[in-house]
């Protein structure tokens, strides 16, 4: 079952880009990554899903309901963490969380305590006395306190130190195990790589691809680096699938995509000093998608 279905969503703001024809689905129980550089349209898509802004054309459903018409109903089960958190400054953390909880018709006080403990958040402080990172923690607790079925995170890790990031990811994985679906937008690939099952890559307002993380990595090249005693004849690796061959003194490097046995045979026939074969990280895959389009 799809928790989120986005169909040809388009939002134009006068001259500014917005998004055009964005379509993808998020299945129940998955952690779905939404990646792209700043300004690619991640926030615009998310803000449209939350009906903070309205689409120029296209539509989206959440839990099978229209995201505009049924917004109040849908939002009972959504937890949202914006990229920059802003709250009513003259409130205490405790009061803000209580206020937030008052919108959901259930008792959240126990969950608030638990979450505050995990995130190491002082509930008695005033919000305007908090650092950026601590405000973010308020945002996290605020987004999760009603145990939402769908968690939408827009670049959630900015401002959090690595330890807190770790705790936060563990918290998300726990929520996910309990059945929550997560839409995780980010421009930091390592965190997406670590958490997500599938990703949508967005560029200049358009979806470039939607893939499983594992397929993304399978379908791409491996990086070879070979050290030899003498510089290698550049034509030696003249087989299909080899790319960006570079010979620098005794080091030969290239990218390979295709049947791995072919290359390994070639390498076995030669005298080598050292050999490195690396999986590209997501960052490189990502760049690959971007360069291809450019």
């Amino acid at each position, binding site marked *: 079952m799809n928790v989120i279905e986005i169909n040809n969503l388009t939002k134009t703001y006068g001259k500014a880009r917005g998004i055009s024809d964005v379509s993808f689905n998020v299945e129940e129980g998955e952690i779905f990554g939404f990646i792209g550089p700043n300004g690619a349209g991640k926030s615009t898509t998310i803000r449209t899903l939350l009906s*903070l802004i309205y689409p120029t054309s296209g539509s989206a459903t959440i839990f099978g309901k229209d995201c505009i018409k049924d917004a*109040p109903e*849908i*939002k009972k089960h959504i937890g949202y963490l914006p990229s920059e958190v*802003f*709250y009513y400054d003259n409130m205490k953390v405790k009061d803000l969380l209580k*206020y937030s909880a*008052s*919108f959901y018709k259930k008792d959240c006080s126990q969950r608030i305590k638990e979450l505050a403990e995990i995130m190491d958040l002082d509930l008695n402080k005033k919000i305007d006395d908090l650092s950026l990172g601590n405000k973010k923690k308020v945002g996290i607790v605020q987004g999760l306190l009603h145990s939402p079925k769908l968690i939408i995170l827009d670049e959630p890790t900015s401002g959090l130190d690595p330890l807190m990031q770790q705790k936060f990811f563990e918290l998300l994985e726990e929520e996910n195990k309990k059945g929550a679906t997560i839409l995780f937008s980010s421009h930091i690939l390592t965190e997406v790589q670590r958490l997500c099952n599938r990703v949508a890559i967005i560029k200049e307002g358009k979806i470039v691809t939607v893939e499983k993380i594992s397929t993304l990595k399978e379908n791409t090249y491996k990086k070879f680096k070979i050290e030899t005693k003498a510089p290698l004849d550049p034509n030696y690796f003249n087989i299909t699938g080899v790319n960006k061959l570079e010979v620098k003194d005794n080091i030969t490097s290239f990218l390979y995509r295709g049947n791995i046995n072919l290359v390994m045979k070639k390498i076995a026939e030669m005298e080598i000093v050292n050999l490195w074969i690396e999986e590209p990280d997501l960052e490189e895959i990502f760049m690959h998608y971007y360069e291809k389009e450019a």
Partner: protein
Amino acid sequence: MNIYLKELKSHRKSIIFWSIGVFLMVVSGMTKYDAYSTSGQSMTELLEDLPKSLRAVFGFSDFDLTKASGFYGMLFLYLLLMATIHAAMLGATIIAKEERDKTSEFLFVKPVSRNKIITAKLLAAFTNLVIFNLATFVSSIVILGRYSDGEAVNGEIAILMAAMFFMQVLFMVIGSALAAIKKRPKSAASLATGILLLTYILSVVIDLNEDIEGLKYLTPFKYFEAKNVMYGGGFEAVFVILSVVLIVGLSIVTYVFFRRRDLNT
């Protein structure tokens, strides 16, 4: 209900200060009357010698300033200005502040419709207007009672307060409608007070120039003037209807435009 209470709380300090302000305004105004009435006839004669335009600008052209109620009628204009400025700013900011303070990503992600949020906010603003009005009413009765010298003033005060209340609600919805329409809602409060001052100036200009009497429908400051309302004058039906139509119309504008707007971050 939670939004309503939250809004009341966040405007608590402001309404307390405004109430103190309006109280001091009545006190200082009526203290002047005290000095004035003891100086006797000479002051009235002096004022009557002033050019008509100057008297119109200061708003004391049509009152018997030797009577406490007359003096209060003149003072009322300033109370009215305070009340409408408060109302216009409140109406605009209560709608616009979520976007101004970037808390819109908190509130509008909650499971409540925009209509309900607007209703809660307008009700909270309305409550503040009632408090402002009551504070003015009570201050006026208490202070004026000390100077009235047996003159029955409470009835006059009551009708003036009713007039003021119409104006407050009207300017509140002018503010809220502007905040709902404008792309940059931050500037709604200043625009609303700008409109307020402009309509006020227009009302003064009309006082100075009888040829443009017809323009009185354009400025709410002409709808319930103290000089017409007091001493048994009461409200003119056409202006009551006009105000109600404007209030209802602008409320609808607030709802319709706000429901459709793209919220800024």
